[in-house]
């Protein structure tokens, strides 16, 4: 997509086509010949895994849409019809519902990898921003998709989340009514959610195209964070990374299949197999696991509007990150202090996820009642959420900006090849037998 092209048309047809639409050249330059740093580890395979996830969601989704009925009286039964009467409908539906969880699992690994190796820093800011846009589109798509089976959690989840928009002063309630297509979550809401749920994956696919384009201009970051200096530092994408990504994708699919075939409902809420009933509210409304951290932030703030602002702010932090991190060193391998704060950050997001699945008044340590401060119990989920929320924001707004100016990073290697060649332990099996081929 950029720079010099090594593509040479092999026959008359390819030459003819290349002069008119250089599409084979595009494919060759970006998927075959593309020079890729040779030190990418398995954390870097999640981009490929995510592409597979998107593909699976789109294909299974199109098949589901052939059988699904977007009507409040028929949606629930139509999903059950897919699983009971459509040939391999259970497979398609369970792949799609578990696929959403797998998609988010992979995107979280992909994002944490970017955070750790500084993949958002110059010259990859636009690449990172496009990734954030994809993530936001994913959240909206997943939320709308969860509404479609029209179970209890679908309906009441939709009510809770759309009501958040009502927290916006003056215009909020009007926007909510407009979104609902009425004065409550009902048939018009379900229909438009279905329409948008079908549209948005193709928007995601479009932004993924831009994301890959923005990747191929500066090229991949790598675990050392050091720029590619020479041809020595890279290998062509094919076959080196097609095979490595392929292996990682296959292992990922093994885990995915274990859920689809042997535990298809483990990640979902049992209550969503009860048809939606607006008159009966479930005892505990919770989103799917991948949105729990944001739900915890929302509930950590006592005021509804401020809660919504904090929840939006949590995602806004990601967009601002390239300009919040002041360190010139990309990889946290060479930033021991930042590394420590990073791992605390990972644990804090998991704690937020835990808090999102609990009721705010639940105790952290059962039976302990001595942490009462002025009528508030510090030994409760809501206070743990507040603590974790504070760290979440501090990580972006205080720790990263300050650390970049005050820490003393470890020396970075001269080039990607340097640390490799100096570590004999890293040499692969067979390398000793043919040392002349090294590098």
């Amino acid at each position, binding site marked *: 997509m950029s720079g010099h092209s090594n593509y040479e048309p092999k026959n008359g047809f390819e030459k003819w086509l290349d002069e008119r639409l250089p599409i084979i050249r595009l494919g060759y330059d970006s998927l075959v010949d593309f020079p890729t740093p*040779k*030190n990418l580890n398995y954390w870097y395979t999640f981009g490929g895994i995510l592409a597979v996830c998107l593909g699976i969601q789109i294909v299974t989704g199109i098949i589901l849409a052939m059988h699904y009925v977007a009507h409040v009286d028929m949606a629930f*039964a139509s999903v*059950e*019809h897919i*699983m*009971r009467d459509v040939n391999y409908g*259970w*497979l398609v539906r*369970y792949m799609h519902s578990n696929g959403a*969880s797998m998609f988010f*699992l992979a995107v979280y690994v992909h994002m944490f990898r970017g955070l750790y190796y500084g993949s958002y820093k110059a010259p990859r800011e636009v690449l990172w921003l496009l990734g954030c846009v994809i993530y936001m589109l994913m959240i909206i798509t997943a939320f709308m998709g969860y509404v479609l089976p029209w179970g209890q959690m679908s309906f009441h989840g939709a009510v809770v989340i759309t009501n958040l928009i009502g927290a916006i002063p003056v215009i909020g309630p009007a926007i909510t009514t407009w979104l609902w297509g009425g004065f409550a979550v009902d048939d018009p809401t379900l229909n438009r959610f279905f329409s948008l749920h079908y549209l948005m994956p193709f928007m995601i696919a479009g932004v993924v195209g831009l994301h890959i384009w923005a990747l191929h201009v500066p090229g991949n970051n790598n675990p050392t964070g050091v720029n590619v200096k020479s041809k020595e530092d890279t290998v062509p994408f094919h076959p*080196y990374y097609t*095979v*490595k990504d*392929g*292996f990682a994708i*296959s*292992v990922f*699919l*093994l*885990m995915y*299949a274990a*859920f*689809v*075939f*042997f*535990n*298809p409902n*483990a*990640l979902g809420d*049992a209550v969503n*197999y*009860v048809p939606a009933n607006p008159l009966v509210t479930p*005892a*505990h409304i*919770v989103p799917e*696991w991948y949105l*729990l951290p944001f739900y915890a932030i929302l509930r950590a703030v006592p005021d509804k509007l401020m809660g919504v602002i904090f929840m939006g702010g949590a995602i806004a932090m990601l967009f601002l990150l390239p300009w919040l991190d002041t360190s010139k060193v990309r990889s946290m391998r060479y930033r021991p202090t930042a590394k420590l704060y990073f791992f605390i950050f990972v644990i804090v997001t*998991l*704690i937020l*996820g*835990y808090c*999102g*699945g*609990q*009721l705010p*008044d*639940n105790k952290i340590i059962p039976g302990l009642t001595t942490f009462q401060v002025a009528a508030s119990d510090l030994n409760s989920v809501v206070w743990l959420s507040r603590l974790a929320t504070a760290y979440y924001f501090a990580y972006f707004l205080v720790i990263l900006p300050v650390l970049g100016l005050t820490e003393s990073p470890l020396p970075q290697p001269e080039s990607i090849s340097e640390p*490799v*060649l100096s570590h004999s332990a890293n*040499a*692969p*099996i*067979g*390398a000793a037998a*043919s040392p002349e*081929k*090294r*590098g």
Partner: protein
Amino acid sequence: MLRKGFALAALGLAFIGGPTLAATSQEEPKAVHWSFEGPLGKFDQAQLQRGYKVYREVCSACHSMNLMSFRNLGQKGGPFYDPEFKNPNDNPFVKSIAKDYQINDIDSETGDVIKRPGTSADRFPNPYPNEPAARASNGGALPPDMSDLAKAREGGAAYIYSILTGYEEAPKGMTVPTGKYYNPYMPGDVSGFWSLDPNKVPIGGFIAMPPPLAPDKVTFDDGTKSTVEQQAKDVSAFLTWVSDPKTEERKSFGLAVMIYLLIFSGLLYASYRRIWANVSH
């Protein structure tokens, strides 16, 4: 619950446990061994047949099963599957079961509302004409539809079994409302009906269904002793099958997929080692 725990741990999400409820509490479902547990577990056809009989003779008086047709009973993996009848609609067992039901219909000649014997393509008829009628007959409570019951309750089969066998004499100090029954396995909050120490409120809740099973209430054709536990176990297994009739197809398909992916991963790993053998990285 345990399998759910393992599944989440496998995802590295051990932090995110099942949602806990505010004031409601319930006893953990009893530990029961099921033939359909685990990745290779299959339903016991004789048990499904007994379970169907319990459903037919006890549960179906109040509980609908809207998503099920009679033909489902004869499909592969079902209680009356017979390899001789690949098309379950032809299965004589299924046909005779269907014929015992009277189905509402419209006479195509006269337009009159009529009743006719069921066919294997018909759905199980609802015991009540509508929801208000169902509530009126059950003291205001609605007997839940049983098609998805095992999927729609945390604990699945073990939960259903525990409710059916878990009825207890209400402890001293508890006032049970009229038309309700105390069951420690039912999620609920009985603190408003408790007159003793407020820190020792019994767990569990009230259920509107009277204890439905009794010894020898159902006669099993295969001679199995008809205890309450046996009836409860069989009907729980049946309802688990009902909530996901494609379970066996899913598991056997899954086994082939896992073997395929394992071999494929092995080949890819070998290719990876070979291709990268001469690159120092």
